[in-house]
């Protein structure tokens, strides 16, 4: 069999630095941009002084199970919402602009953290390997890059012939890593690196990478049912990329890291198909990345699919959650929050459970308050548990998010 080759397709609308290795990427800041960075950092520093503890102190207290003034608040605002902070809600600068221009990406995060007094900067990924396994891709205005044409992996020969891309060399990943490193440098320069934590993501999980970069959703789900051998081979290779990406993130000096998963999109067993082996793959990703990061750096999952409760026990039993692996999970509003908090409380794992995104989008403050209170009351029962808001819809009015944050801070106080 021939040696597998890296197969990066053509990326339509790619930025000029696309494909430049990380060690060769460099962007200069203009005087005006530098002033903006400074002012945002100054505002963040001021925000951090408003409460008893800084966000960083509170973040560490959460994972180290030490006393704190209130719950840490995780918000999945992501780049699309971050862009809103840059152009006064004009819908002028597009999310895609931030994916193409790492400096804009940094600015979006700092501006949003300054504006909304966030507890954390969450640097979500800009890409899911759409053109990294043999297909072409296209960068668009309002979303992450899209695969163009047919998904590339249909046979064992397809998957066996493609090599795992290197996040420090290929596609848009060097740009993401540069932005992650650079934001830390800026924060250190302006004295807030020890005040506000930064979390990096290394998403998609192997399943997401398989569906978005290799097989497509429909064919991928059919493959899972009808061609387990090929599905497994795809998952193994996707896991290898996730591990490489996760390890590469360490050099950006994050304060924490997370991997999204949409396990829960299908059950562990479907008629005569047993997919529980996937938890062994997730355990491998967790152990390898956590081992590289070190035990002091929080590493957790974000759950993106209903049905994850069927996988939860398996994750724990197979070592995909717990000591030496993923430290816990952030959940979207899909399951029963009490059951979830209880499960993670019993196992001493990190947990955050979001409120309903629709309520925030609709500015339904009565519901927002009710949901926050219910979740905060549960989260307060264990020192490793946190409050959560997100994922913020692109059209959530800024005053609504602002008020939601204020409510969350009030309700999360001990």
């Amino acid at each position, binding site marked *: 069999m021939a040696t597998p080759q890296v197969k990066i397709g053509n990326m339509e609308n790619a930025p000029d630095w696309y494909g430049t290795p990380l060690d060769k990427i460099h962007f200069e800041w203009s005087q005006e941009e530098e002033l903006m960075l400074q002012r945002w950092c100054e505002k963040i520093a001021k925000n951090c002084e408003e409460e008893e503890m800084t966000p960083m102190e509170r973040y560490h207290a959460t994972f180290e199970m030490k006393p704190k003034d209130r719950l840490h608040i995780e918000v999945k605002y992501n780049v*699309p919402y971050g862009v809103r902070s840059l152009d006064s809600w004009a*819908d002028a600068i597009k*999310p895609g602009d931030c994916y193409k221009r790492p400096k804009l990406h940094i600015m979006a995060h700092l501006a949003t953290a300054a504006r909304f007094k966030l507890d954390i900067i969450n640097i979500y990924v800009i890409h899911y390997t759409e053109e990294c396994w043999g297909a072409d891709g296209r960068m*668009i*205005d*309002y*979303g*992450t890059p*899209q*695969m163009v044409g047919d998904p590339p992996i249909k046979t064992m020969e397809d998957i066996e012939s493609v090599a795992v891309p290197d996040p420090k060399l290929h596609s848009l990943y060097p740009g993401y890593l540069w932005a992650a490193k650079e934001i830390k440098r800026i924060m250190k320069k302006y004295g807030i690196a020890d005040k506000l934590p930064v979390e990096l993501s290394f998403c998609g999980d192997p399943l997401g990478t398989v569906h978005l970069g290799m097989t497509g*959703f*429909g064919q991928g*789900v*059919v493959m*899972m*049912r009808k061609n387990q051998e090929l599905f497994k081979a795809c998952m193994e290779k996707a896991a290898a990329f996730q591990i490489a990406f996760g390890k590469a993130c360490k050099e950006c000096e994050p304060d924490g890291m997370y991997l999204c998963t*949409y396990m*829960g*999109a*299908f*059950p562990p067993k*479907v008629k005569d198909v047993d997919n529980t082996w996937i938890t062994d793959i997730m355990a491998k990703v967790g152990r390898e990345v956590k081992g590289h990061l070190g035990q002091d750096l929080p590493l957790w999952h974000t759950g993106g*699919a*209903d*049905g994850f*409760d069927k996988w939860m026990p398996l994750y724990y039993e197979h070592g995909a959650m717990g000591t030496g692996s993923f430290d816990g999970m952030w959940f979207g509003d*899909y*399951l029963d929050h009490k059951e979830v908090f209880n499960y993670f409380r019993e196992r001493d794992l990190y947990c955050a459970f979001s409120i309903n995104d*629709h309520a925030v*989008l609709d500015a339904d403050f009565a519901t927002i308050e009710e949901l926050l209170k219910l979740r905060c009351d549960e989260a307060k029962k264990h020192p490793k548990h946190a409050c959560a808001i997100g994922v913020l*819809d*692109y*059209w959530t009015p800024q005053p609504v998010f602002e008020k939601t944050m204020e409510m969350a801070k009030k309700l999360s106080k001990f």
Partner: protein
Amino acid sequence: MSKEELLNKLTDGMVEIEEDEVLELVDQAIEAGLQPMEIITEGLQPGLTIIGEGFDKHTRFTSDLILAGELLNDVMEKLRPIMVKGAGGTGDNMVIGTVEGDEHSVGKRVVTAMFTGAGYNVIDIGENQPASAFVNAAKENDAKIVGASAILGPQKPYCKVIHDAMVEAGIRDNLLFVIGGWGMTQEWCDNVCADAYGDTAKEAIEKVRKIQAGEIPRWNKR
């Protein structure tokens, strides 16, 4: 097997997402003289509804929705050759797609099935489609209706891009532009210059018929 038994088996087969069984039953239904609209709305649609309700109750999974959509697609391939003008529809061509940046397909497939069952000839251009794809398909097929699905928040404004592209291409006045997806509202419909939106496929069909009958104004007459 009676018609009722056949339709019930179709429903059950869809609920269990038994591809081979459903496709075989569709063949039997066609042979027995059932109309495509009956097969879809009285056989398959109830099964889809059960899956959807199960998903809302957390007893069914995203994979079930995707597989059901794939199966519905396969069924439509079987039914398309025998679709005839009728069932209250006009036989008009309709182009439908999910907008650029959005990969969701299940809802669109349900809408495709319903409009097909209602007598429209629906051309599904797929997911993540740029405005040019909508325009080209509308032109090639002399479409009287263009449907755009946009579920993801940031992608909703793209419906306006599609409208603008159709205006520029000189075809907007000759067709109805219908949008759908989670969170679509009348306000969104107005903002993106769509003629109608539907919370459900059935609602979308009703609105299209009413606009075509002059009972509801088009976007530029509101």
